[in-house]
């Protein structure tokens, strides 16, 4: 007889009754039986709806036709139901691109893992596959890709390396190193003897190596029973194994987990949090090395929008209280530290710290119960190990180890029989925490506690270890700032505060804070702090270079140079960080040497297995600087691959794209200026597409759309450029960004003849910078002229000319304004009449500035020929800083006299000059485009 299943609860229904009405005794539904023996009530509609819903949410649609009784064994709380996604296994021998499936080796939270052969390299790999994503939603694919990307970024002996990732005929996959060994959950369940030091000793001798810091002499002592040493897999006295652990076994376990903590620390420093650390995801390789695998829930800290929205994903027993409580925003690297603590607890005691019959009970316990001290049940567990374990499992993340490296340090100290840095939680520590929270109110009390500390002596050792720990926190913060992003110090401010509260050493604190100040754009404060530091230690190389960098930002160029020179007499940079600061100090002055220094920093760090993305980013910035200042295409060849790699690594979302866009645009400008129009066009297009990709990669960053706008402008797509400027404006965070937007947008409107919009932007920019006569006077006058109101235009220029006190620069610019209006006589009259009344400002940072201003004035007044000006500019060390200005005024003279051809020639010369602020390129370019676009312009000047 055919079987009938209840469409509501899927239980089998006994159909002995001939009646058409059938009851399901499991769920109480009733339904009609049709001749085809299919249930035909409204439930059928429900089933269709359910199938559709499954499809809509990315579940397996064919589920109903398969066996339904997938049960979770009591001990396994892995994502058994999510593994329902993986019903369609790949068969043995099937190929996924370069990979041939050998067999399935496991299911993870996401996807199936196969043993596979990589054909071209003829090696075996573990291939993780997210099968048939047509059935999976966007989130699933995103999460899977994140996992691959996060793991691929890591390069550490304790992290399973990722070889390749790809997308082949509907299967997203990535290939990892195939680690032969067993996961810790298998070991806990079936082979606890593998965690004994004797086992390790036997294996390491069979492997002919001794990878552990375990004193050899004790290895053969206190041998466990023969049975436990060589158990068969199905006959293990689990409890006996655990209670017979020796001190060496515990040390061995600690040394193993120290490796895991190292791996975690590496991941954390790369912005990757594992979020699902548990015995299942840690493999003890046959090489006796620990491997972290399955960054299944990996959450890239640099992509905050990718968090799972409050969804509880991990196994509840290993969840941190902040995960279990659903406070996703509080999850940080300390969540992993917690979960590793739970793993340690289970390895040591054989039990999980929090148990319950339901998931909910476990979650409740995780959130609210204190873990039972380990020694309460097994007294042989060393106290220090208990201290370490309980500390990692503190409910409050602040009370856990601040970093995984701090945890590794303590585990290693324990393993090597040295005193650990953590202390058993004492009333003093609780008191200290209380004081920290109520600092202002209880200063007096803090003093008395401090006195107590001095008088009792043993507490002094406590505060010493606390200081060491504070220093470790600071080291972490410093690492992050130097290696990843000093421009975002807000990420580590809390850590620094904590370290300060815990009594970190003053010198370290000053040093890290000075870097924070630099990142926040306060070089003055950086210098102040570093001076204090350097008073005590005048040969602090990193501090010296950092100071030189800060001095440069303060525009104290000579002092900056002399600090760099002084540091060189001390032997120059030694550490990667010192090389990095040196490069920052000379970035603008000597971009070639800076690029080299950044590279040294990066390579040295790389040799230590450290990732130094900030050095890579700056290598590219330095090459862009070379490209800009020297117009050398060699720099393009250097900058491009570095940036491409950063894009590939997904570091600095958007910034790398943005810099690539600039690299291509600068190259395009070189091609344009050297007459290679095709190549220029191609490069402008590429620059545009990188900028657009930057916009996609970082949709909230204001910079990529500004780069899009610049490229579109170069390509003559002014309308689109305006739209990009509008987008950039909507994303601007600082006034500085908005003002820069007006600066570039008004002329786009102006070129297109949108005079109202142009004037609005001019006025907005004038509101940003009331000191710029171009925006307060000259350009409003230009708009008046375009509208045919020369009287109003003239009045504006007169206002500039008559501004008190008279200065040379106001007069020169007013003359420029008159010339723009075609009033050559007014220009020369003004300059000659003011000749003896104007003051010349001096700028000591530019050697010939004074002389330059006088010559320029005379040239504009018509009393000195252009050649004198040119010769003077050429005599300077940096002729391009002056040439732009000279050609600009020459262009205006030609324009006022009605000689358009000569004017165009001169303005083209301004474009080829690259003064630092690019002001005259900009101002000359404005007129140049107008001249080229409209042969009758300017209508108010007779040819």
């Amino acid at each position, binding site marked *: 007889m055919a079987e009938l299943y209840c469409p509501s609860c899927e239980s089998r229904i006994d159909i002995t009754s001939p009646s058409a009405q059938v009851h399901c005794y499991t769920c109480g539904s009733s339904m009609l039986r049709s001749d085809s023996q299919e249930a035909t009530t409204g439930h059928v*509609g*429900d089933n269709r709806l359910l199938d*559709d819903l*499954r499809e*809509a949410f990315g579940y397996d649609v064919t589920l109903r036709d398969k066996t*339904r009784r997938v*049960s979770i064994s009591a001990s396994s709380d892995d994502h058994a*139901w999510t593994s329902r996604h993986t019903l369609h296994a790949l068969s043995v021998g099937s190929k996924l691109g370069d990979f041939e499936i050998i067999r399935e080796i496991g299911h993870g939270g996401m996807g199936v893992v196969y043993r596979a052969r990589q054909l071209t390299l003829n090696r075996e790999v573990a291939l993780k596959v997210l099968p048939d994503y047509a059935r999976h*939603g966007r989130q699933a694919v995103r999460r899977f890709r994140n996992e691959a990307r996060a793991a691929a970024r890591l390069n550490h002996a304790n992290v399973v390396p990722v070889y390749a990732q790809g997308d082949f005929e509907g299967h997203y996959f990535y290939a990892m190193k195939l680690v032969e060994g067993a996961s810790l959950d298998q070991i806990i369940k079936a082979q606890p003897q593998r965690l004994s030091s004797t086992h390790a000793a036997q294996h390491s001798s069979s492997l002919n190596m001794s990878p552990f810091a375990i004193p050899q002499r004790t290895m053969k002592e206190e041998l466990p029973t023969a049975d436990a040493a060589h158990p068969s897999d199905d006959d293990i006295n689990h409890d006996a194994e655990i209670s017979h652990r020796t001190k060496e076994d515990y040390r061995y376990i600690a040394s193993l987990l120290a490796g895991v903590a190292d791996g975690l620390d590496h991941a954390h420093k790369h912005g990757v949090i594992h979020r699902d650390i548990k015995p299942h995801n840690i493999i003890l390789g046959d090489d006796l090395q620990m491997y972290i695998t399955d960054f299944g829930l990996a959450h890239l800290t640099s992509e905050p929008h990718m968090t799972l929205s409050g969804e509880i994903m991990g196994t509840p027993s290993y969840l941190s209280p902040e995960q279990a409580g659903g406070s996703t925003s509080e999850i940080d690297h300390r969540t992993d530290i917690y979960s590793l603590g739970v793993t340690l607890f289970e390895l040591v005691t054989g039990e999980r710290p929090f148990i319950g019959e339901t998931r909910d009970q476990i979650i409740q316990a995780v959130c609210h119960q204190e873990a039972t001290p380990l020694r309460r049940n097994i007294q042989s567990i060393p106290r220090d190990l208990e201290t370490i374990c309980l500390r990692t499992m503190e409910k409050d993340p602040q009370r856990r180890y601040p970093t995984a490296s701090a945890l590794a340090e303590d585990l290693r100290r324990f393993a090597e029989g040295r005193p650990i840095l953590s202390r058993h939680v004492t009333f003093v520590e609780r008191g200290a925490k209380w004081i920290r929270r109520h600092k202002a109110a209880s200063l007096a009390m803090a003093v008395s506690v401090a006195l107590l500390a001095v008088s009792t002596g043993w507490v002094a050792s406590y505060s010493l270890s606390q200081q060491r720990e504070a220093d470790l926190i600071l080291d972490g913060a410093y690492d992050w700032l130097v290696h990843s992003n000093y421009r975002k110090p807000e990420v580590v401010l809390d850590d620094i505060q904590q370290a300060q509260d815990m009594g970190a050493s003053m010198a370290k604190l000053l040093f890290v804070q000075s870097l924070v100040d630099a990142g926040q754009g306060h070089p003055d404060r950086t210098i102040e702090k570093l001076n204090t530091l350097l008073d005590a230690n005048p040969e602090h190389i990193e501090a010296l270079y950092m100071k030189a960098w800060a001095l440069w930002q303060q525009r104290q160029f000579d002092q900056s140079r002399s600090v760099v020179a002084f540091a060189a007499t001390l032997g120059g940079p030694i550490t990667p960080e010192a090389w990095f600061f040196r490069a920052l100090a000379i970035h603008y002055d000597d971009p070639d040497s800076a690029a080299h220094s950044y590279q040294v920093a990066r390579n040295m760090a790389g040799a230590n297995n450290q990732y130094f993305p900030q050095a890579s980013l700056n290598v590219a910035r330095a090459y862009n600087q070379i490209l800009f200042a020297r117009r050398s295409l060699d720099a393009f060849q250097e900058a491009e691959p570095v940036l491409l790699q950063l894009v590939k690594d997904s570091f600095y979302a958007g910034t790398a794209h943005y810099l690539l866009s600039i690299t291509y645009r600068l190259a395009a400008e070189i091609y344009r200026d050297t007459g290679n129009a095709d190549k220029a066009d191609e490069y402008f297009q590429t620059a545009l597409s990188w900028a657009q990709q930057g916009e996609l990669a970082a949709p909230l960053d204001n910079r990529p759309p500004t780069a899009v706008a610049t490229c579109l402008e170069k390509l003559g797509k002014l309308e689109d450029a305006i739209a990009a400027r509008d987008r950039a404006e909507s994303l601007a965070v600082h006034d500085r960004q908005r003002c820069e937007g007006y600066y570039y947008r008004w002329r786009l409107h102006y070129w297109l003849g949108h005079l109202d919009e142009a004037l609005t932007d001019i006025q907005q920019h004038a509101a940003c910078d009331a000191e710029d006569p171009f925006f307060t006077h000259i350009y409003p006058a230009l708009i008046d002229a375009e509208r045919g109101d020369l009287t109003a235009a003239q009045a504006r220029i007169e206002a500039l000319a008559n501004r008190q006190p008279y200065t040379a620069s106001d007069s020169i610019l007013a003359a420029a304004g008159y010339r723009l209006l075609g009033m050559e006589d007014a220009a020369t009259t003004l300059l000659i009449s003011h000749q003896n009344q104007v003051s010349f400002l001096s700028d000591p940072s530019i050697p010939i500035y004074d002389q330059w201003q006088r010559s320029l004035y005379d040239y504009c007044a018509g009393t000195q020929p252009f050649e004198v000006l040119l010769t003077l500019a050429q005599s300077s060390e940096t002729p391009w800083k002056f040439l732009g200005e000279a050609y600009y005024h020459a262009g205006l003279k030609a324009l006022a006299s009605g000689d358009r051809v000569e004017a165009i020639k001169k303005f083209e010369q301004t474009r080829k000059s690259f003064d630092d602020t690019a002001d005259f390129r900009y101002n000359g370019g404005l007129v140049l485009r107008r001249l080229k676009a409209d042969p009758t312009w300017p209508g108010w000047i007779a040819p």
Partner: protein
Amino acid sequence: MGTAESTHITLLLRLRDRSDSMGWAEFDERYGELLYRYARGRGAKHETAEDVVQEVTMYLFKAMEGFEYDARKGRFRSYLRSAVVHALGRRAVKEAKQPAPLDPHAFDFIRAEKESSADAKWEREWQMHRLRWALKSVADEFEEKTLKAFEVHALGGLSVEDTAKQVGISTSSVYQAKSRVLKRVKAKLDSIDPDADV
């Protein structure tokens, strides 16, 4: 068209207001999956599909300024399809000259309407989108555990017993969760015009 349309118009209005960044996120939340799946269904790789979703969102973000949505002209759903098809097309001819982004001010709604109805893939994805919308809009009426049980059991296919164990409710609550949620989804779907934009 009642409620569904008005929610939808609110979203469009909020999209127009650029300072309201939530509008954008909501748009992605509501239509991202639809656009993504459709793009994938038409052979786009993950990266391309993600790009397309973002591009369409960006177009709308940009284009909504001054765009008066008029339900009589044509359905938003048809416009959305044209936008995603267009974006896919732009990717297909990436190396060649790219056509300009789709301008909703000069948009042929009648043609889009015809194309949309003739596109079975789009219609199917739209139905899926409607279902997601329906389930999400009734989700607030249920306790978290009920929803979890529904998801794990009814959608994920875990047995009743294991679901009960995993979620921490009784087996009869698992059955109830399934029928109650399903019932509400059905009622929600029945309450709106099958053609309405959601």
